[in-house]
């Protein structure tokens, strides 16, 4: 426990975060490119066309990972919110607010690709189905978090207020995930993330997983880049930033 807390505080220290994230970025970028290229090639070229949907099913390689990311990023933010409120670790606040726009972007992509897909499948761009509604809610909650953060002038209060809002919005996540189970929806049920193994052909599954990993790497990279900028801006007065800038 003690060493856990130590690790925790180490990551919580801005200079350490700045240094380590700087070292990690090139590696992450490399991995990202590899998984992305494999996922796209395998998904768009290698995988066979669906016997029902033809080629239009290939939008799955963007839709599903993007939808997962929208939820995953929110969970990361919620965790950061808890860390920030309970242990008052500054980095958590930076992670939270740097993640929000990325999460919003993924939620938006899931919505757009979903409705593009919905037109041929269901004959409509949009219905007030529980999964669709809750996903739209997710996008609005992201926007609300961003707006609240920019509206509170005091930086300390801004971080804590957005953390509370983030935690309030968490109730929406299980609703998104279980909406297909709880309600009789148009949207199809869980096929990949099932306890009894995925109900999907392996030629389709591998590219999908690869794309999912690529999206996660993309998130980590962008989040770190924006967090680094934010940290520098916040700590302009501190010694390590001055040394950093002076040393260049």
């Amino acid at each position, binding site marked *: 426990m003690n060493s856990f807390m130590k690790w925790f505080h180490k990551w919580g220290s801005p200079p350490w975060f700045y240094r380590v994230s700087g070292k990690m970025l090139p590696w992450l970028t490399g991995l990202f490119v590899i998984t992305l290229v494999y996922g796209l090639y395998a998904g768009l070229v290698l995988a066979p066309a669906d016997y029902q949907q033809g080629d239009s099913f290939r939008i799955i390689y963007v839709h599903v990972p993007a939808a997962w990311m929208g939820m995953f990023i929110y969970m990361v933010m919620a965790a950061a919110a808890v860390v920030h*409120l309970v242990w008052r670790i500054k980095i958590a606040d930076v992670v939270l607010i740097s993640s929000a726009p990325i999460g919003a972007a993924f939620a938006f992509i899931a919505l757009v690709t979903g409705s593009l897909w919905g037109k041929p499948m269901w004959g409509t761009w949009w219905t*007030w189905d529980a999964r669709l*509604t*809750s996903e*739209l*809610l997710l996008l*609005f*909650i992201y*926007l*609300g978090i961003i*707006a*609240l953060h920019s*509206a*509170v*002038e*005091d930086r*300390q*209060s801004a971080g*804590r*207020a957005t953390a*509370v*809002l983030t*935690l*309030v919005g968490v*109730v929406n996540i299980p609703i998104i995930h279980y909406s297909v189970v709880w*309600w009789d929806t148009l949207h199809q049920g869980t096929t990949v993330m099932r306890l009894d193994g995925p109900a999907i052909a392996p030629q389709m599954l591998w590219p999908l997983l690869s794309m999912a990993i690529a999206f996660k790497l993309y998130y980590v990279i962008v989040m770190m880049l924006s967090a680094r900028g934010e940290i520098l801006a916040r700590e302009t007065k501190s010694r390590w930033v001055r040394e950093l800038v002076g040393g260049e």
Partner: protein
Amino acid sequence: MSVWQAFIELLKRDLRLAMRRRAEIANPLLFFVMVIVLFPLGVGAEPNLLERMSAGVVWVAALLAALLTLDSIFRSDFEDGTLEQLLLSAQPLSVMVLAKVVAHWLVTGLPLLLVAPLLAMLLGMKSAAMGTLMLSLLLGTPVLSLIGAIGVALTVGLRRAGVILSLLVLPLYVPVLIFGAAAVDAAASGLPVAGQLYILAAFLAMALSLAPVAAASALRISLS
């Protein structure tokens, strides 16, 4: 002084204030009636058209009435320093918040509930749907007050909140609106409504247990 007594005292105070408050332009009941009466005037009074809109109109009016009065939960207390005193009181803040939310509901939600059947009749709603309308409002309007309290608590200290309160609160209101109106529509068409009502009840249970705590911590942040 026990927590319960403090709860009651604060509730009584808020109700008394609501009675005395001046220029309540956003008087929820009046607003509710106004929307529902102005509608036929603007749209033209075709009975068939009106009947098909009735559930939606009543629910939208209820939602707007709640939204427009949200600010009153904490704003005036913030401006005259009472909120500071609540924060510094020896009683748990979330209980105090709950008292204020209950007061808000009693002032904005309950009266709507009482006049809703009348107005729905005016719009030509089928009497078969009346019971469901009442029940859906009974379950739904407290959720509006509870969720709203979190939004107001988060934004009460802002100097340029602008439209943020609505932005925060509306998305969370939309599901209540959709399921509420859907229940009434289903009842009017003779379909089962238990599903929608259970969902509304679940919303209420969740809001009741989480909102006061969330609003209390939001208030602490907003005031610092």
